[in-house]
């Protein structure tokens, strides 16, 4: 399992498309920084292909006032959970 980390909003950047292309069937995707905009209910359809393997960073959602608007299909983790995800993954790939 590989952890992919995406820090761009699907409202601005198309890098999410390359990220999804590069993900294997067990890989996980963590949305961080402006990437957490992709976790909103209105945006999460962009990540339908990785449903169940989609995570978002709690601190970045909270800082933006978006924690209550995060779609329920997204697993919210804090920075300790981020570390755990990197422990569990064979390696990480960052997309920006």
């Amino acid at each position, binding site marked *: 399992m590989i952890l992919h980390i995406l*820090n761009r*909003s699907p*409202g*601005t950047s198309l890098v999410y498309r390359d990220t999804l292309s590069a993900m294997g069937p067990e890989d996980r995707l963590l949305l961080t*920084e*402006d990437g957490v*905009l992709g976790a*909103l*209910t*209105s*945006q999460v359809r962009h990540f339908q292909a990785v449903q169940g393997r989609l995570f978002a960073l709690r*601190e*970045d959602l*909270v*800082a*933006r*006032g*978006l924690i*209550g608007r995060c779609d329920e299909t997204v697993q919210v983790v804090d920075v300790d959970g981020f570390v755990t995800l990197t422990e569990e993954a064979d390696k990480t790939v960052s997309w920006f």
Partner: protein
Amino acid sequence: MSSPSDANGDLLIILRHAPHGSSWLREGLDAALVAAAFGKSVSLLFQGDGIMALIPGQGAGALGQKGTAATLDMLAMYDIESLYVDASALDRFGMTPDDLQLPALPVDDATISRLIAVHRLILTF
């Protein structure tokens, strides 16, 4: 809030970046406050991810760096009352003006191009 047709202003600042991820939004708001302090009439247009600036309940960022919520509260103090928000961006994010922490007027594409036409100077952030 003035309607777009009144807004024959000195400066329109277009804010397209979300808070926290970069300093664009903060630096754009700083430019707005300084221009207002210099006596210019300033309008703000929140477009694309920039509408996230208007979401209530924002806090400090990683390591406690300041967000932009406090700066937004200062806009009224500086008489910056012409706030516009891109209606299509609101739609895209599934939001309405009631979701925003400040009263901003939703504007369509034709109105956005008119805002740009009637302001003397345009800065994008």
